[in-house]
């Protein structure tokens, strides 16, 4: 599914001795558009919902000697509002807790089959909230059993060096101690791609990464909607390379 990323690496000299900066651009062929849900095969108008936008994250894999995540908060909230996980993506340190309050009039359910953290919060009404502690690093995809368009992802990191790519896919991670790292770019639809970077003191390491599109072919909305609720794919999205943006990165 994942195409090998092609990275180009060039290292520019920097005057800073202790720490360098990672700069780069990650290109994501992401699908956009609304998700068409048709509950019954033959009757009823399909419901159309906007897909949650999950941004692309770029982070250094594994622990970084002497660098803790201590400055990151331990408690996060992913609200279930208007049948959408809000926010759809959080980056948290290992051991942090995420609570999932239900702010809608209807029942919601959040579950994850990701190995990093498997849980099923069951169905609960408005006003209730359930909390999950994420004690292992990795990515957890969260879905709602009731609303098939709802999705969210939690990235549990072991070091503070990560960035959320902006609209253009550009990112910047500063104050990275010199050394050799595996840089990972991840997107909920595009999966992960890795690149080894060398950070030298006071320099800026530039990285270009690419996350291949998840889908290489168009799907016909109607046919799929007859089968089961699946995502609508804007017909031209394969060409239009939209980028997931979440604005400035760090929480």
């Amino acid at each position, binding site marked *: 599914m994942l195409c090998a990323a092609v990275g180009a690496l060039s290292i520019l000299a920097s005057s800073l001795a202790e720490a360098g900066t990672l700069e780069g651009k990650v290109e994501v062929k992401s*699908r956009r558009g609304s998700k068409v849900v048709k509950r019954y095969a033959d009757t009823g108008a399909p419901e159309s919902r906007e897909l949650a936008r999950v941004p692309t994250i770029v982070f250094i894999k594994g622990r970084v000697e002497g660098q803790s995540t201590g400055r990151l908060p331990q408690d996060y909230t992913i609200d279930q509002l208007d049948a959408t996980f809000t926010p759809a993506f959080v980056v948290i340190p290992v051991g942090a807790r995420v609570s999932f309050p239900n702010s809608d009039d209807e029942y919601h359910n959040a579950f994850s*089959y990701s190995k990093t953290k498997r849980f099923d919060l069951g169905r609960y009404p408005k006003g209730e909230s359930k909390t999950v502690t994420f004690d292992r690093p990795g990515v957890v995809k969260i*879905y709602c059993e009731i609303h*098939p368009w709802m999705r969210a992802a939690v990235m549990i990191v072991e070091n503070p060096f990560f960035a959320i790519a902006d609209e253009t896919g550009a990112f910047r991670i500063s104050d990275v101690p010199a050394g050799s790292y595996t840089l990972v770019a991840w997107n909920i639809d595009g999966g992960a791609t890795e690149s080894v970077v060398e950070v030298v003191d006071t320099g800026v390491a530039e990285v270009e990464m690419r996350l291949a599109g998840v*889908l290489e072919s168009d799907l016909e909305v109607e046919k*799929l909607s007859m*089968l*089961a609720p699946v995502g609508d794919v804007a017909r031209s999205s394969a060409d239009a390379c939209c980028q997931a943006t979440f604005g400035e990165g760090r929480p």
Partner: protein
Amino acid sequence: MSFRAKIFIALLGLVAGLTGLLFVMVGQETERQVDLAVSEATMRAQNAFSDLEELWRAELSRVGARFTGSNRIPGALEAALEEDDSEVLADAANYELTIAGIADSLLVVADAEGSPVLALVNGAESTWNAGLPNVDDIVADDDEFFSYRIHEDRLFVVHAVPLALFGRLLGSMLVGYPVDREVIHRLGEVIGAEVCFVAGGRSLGATAGISNAALFDDVVALATADRLGTRILADRGWALAAEPLTVGEGVAGSRVIAVPLDEVVAPFERLRRRLAVAGATALFLALAIGVAVARGLASPVGVLTRATERVAEGDLEVQVPVRTRDELGRLGQAFNQMVNDLALKEKYRSVLDKVVSRDIAEEMLRGEIKLGGETRPVTTLFADIRGFTALTEGMPPERVIALLNEVMDAAAQAVDAEGGVVDKYVGDELMAVFGAPISGDDDARRAVRAALRIQEAVSDLNRGREARGDAPIGVGIGINTGPAVAGNMGSHDRLNYTVLGESVNLAARLCGRARAGEVLVSDATLDQAGDGFVTRALEPVRVKGISYSISVHEVRGERRAQSRVTSAALALSVALALVAGPLGWARPSHAQMPTLAEAGAYLVSPSGDYRLDLSGMLLLDVYEPGRDGAGFIFEDDTFLAGRLSLFLDATLGPYVDAAVELRADRGETPSDQGVTGRIEQAFVVIKPWKDRRFDIQIGRFLSPFGGWPRRHDTRADAFIRPPLPYDYRTMICPLVPPPNVEKFLNWKHVPERFRPTGSPVVWGAPYQKGAMVSWRTGGLTARVAVLGTAPSSEPYDWGYWPGEEFDPSWVGDLSYRFSHSFQMVVSCSVGPYLQTTIEPRLREGRSLDDYEQSIWSVYGSWTRGWTQLKIELLIDSWDVPNVYEKVEDDSAIVEIKQKVSPGWWLAARWSTIRFSELSTMYGGDNAWDWDIERWEIAFGWAPSRNLELRFESMWNSQKGPYEPDDDLLALQLKWLF
């Protein structure tokens, strides 16, 4: 073989043949019905099964939708694929299956390439080796992906659906219900048949009926046969239908439905049994009746045979008992009479040397005869061969004598048959006496009948002579009645009993005046002979030796009393139509013998632009004419006629049609001659417009003239014979020109047998060569045709093209339908009518084209409910050679047809021809032919759409000096096929 055996075998053969035929027919029909019923039952079962499959499919796709409606299963698959751990997937799947209440189902989940990720049976993990189709194929197949799979030796009905997560096709899922014994059992109950699933040569499950019966082997045999399909088992117990079953790659499977046929076939078997019983009964009855009839017929024959043998031995005292009045009884009577006569003959032998007649001898024997003579009323007949001298000139003497003896022998037999005495032969003349020596009340009558018999016998002789190429013989006969001296005259040892007197002389004189073939009688004879004869008064004549002039009559024949058959048939027909029809007896059946078209006798091109249709008509006619025939019929004995027509209709593209009629019959005019065949019609129609507003027709076809021909072959005509103007020969002769108007006016007096050369007013349904243009608009149709001959021309002239021999005939008609019930047609024809052979006899400077027939017809038809009224008027005018006035005749036809119930109808028609008067040179007007009227009553029954039985009785009445005996009884069977 004895006579008895022949009758017996004939009767038995007939019944056996009919029964056998019935058996074969019913048997075939039963086969057909059984096949039909079986295929219906099989199809019902198959359809029921298909409906069940449809339900399964719907159920499975609902389950599929349920599984894919939530992100659980796709999410679990995603986790399983990304993290290579199917545990969570198994949990999720079992959870969903349990909730859906189908935990015993088969569930297989595969990745996008179709490699299995998880397989569950009864909630337990299982190994699925086969894989699933690529998910793209499942998507492409829409949700038609429905089939059967064998897993762990169990049959499942399965349905595959794609699994997608946020538009990403992750893989596919296959859900299957087990098709186990219980399911198959219920399935069988629902579709009312036994069901068996077979794969790889063995059963995967079957209903109890198949498992228990020997049926199983047949089912497996069919299921594993190279070609699946349906099969009816030899004992008719079951119909099997096999259909292929997709159970997986490389495994041939099939599903067999066995439909029990007992209830389907039973009624037919019952019918067959009853028929067998009925047939056996009929045969037995035929046997019994055959024995009785054969015995009844054969025993009198045996008695007669034995009696004859005794007579041959010389015993003339033999008499046979006469118990019945039938033919055998009459034979016995005749036999007894013959033996009596033979005995008498022995007695007379001694006296026959002296006299010529048995009667005289008998009278002599009784001692009643007066030798001296007596005056008594006698009827004397003289018959004389006309032109005998000229006839026998140059003939060898032995042939002259042979000829004379032949004629005289025939004449003497005729006289004898009527109880007369042949008095003497004088050369080529015969003299016969009726009333001496023994008088009777009917001497004159018997004499006239004897004369007619002589003429008939001579006609018969002439037929033989003509066949041999000899000249015909003509005999003239004179008869008179009056007092004459009768007695034995001559010397005492050689006496001759004879009659003498003036009345005898007059008979001889009348004989002298009679032309060949004529029988002339005096007033006196006719008075005594009574009404029984058709006669014609001639001018009174003066005879040598007789001072006064005497009235003379020509006897043309014996008047036949209206046949009892005719009256009985007419009464029966009317009774049938009026009583049986409304009672609903023998209503027309919708069943019918198939027509050629229905039997598939047609060819059509794939585009439908070209087609060839075949149809036919069979008419079988029985005619019983009066003595003089009627109209075109000149026979005087009952005869069979009819016709067979085959019609070929061709459509040659959108613009051209063609038609041919092949006909075989006993001549255009029915007669007892042999059957001949010919092409009656052959024409091409060019139709430039689709709506046929304008057509051109070329070839030989039915002339558009007149109201009757256009309907003569259809139901619209209720009669067998045409109306009078289409069926009567006038005295206009197209072969011989009359020398002047007086001779022409005299032609109507000629004997009836010359009529067949006359021209009809219109030939009944003439088919002529030419071209016709038709134009139609609204209810109006106009046609103009140019034809080779006039509508009165004879069939052998119909082969001429317009202008080929004489000027063309122009025919036109204009028909207009005023309303649904009322239609009028006016038609007209002008053209030469004489035949080509007359040309040399025409006056100098005259040609065939100078003599035209112009005829107009106005025809109207009106229908209301079951009543139809048709009227036609014909105004006809002829140019006759050497007659300077127009020779005219007018005809009228009024016809009414009344349906009395479906399939039954009665019709009556009156038609007449009135002939114009022409002025003669000597002043005074004289009609050129005898006005004639015809009455017809017809009755018909149509037992089905294409079969019709008709009866017609016709009386003609002519206003002439004599009334011809030309009634006609006709019966017709018409079959359209």
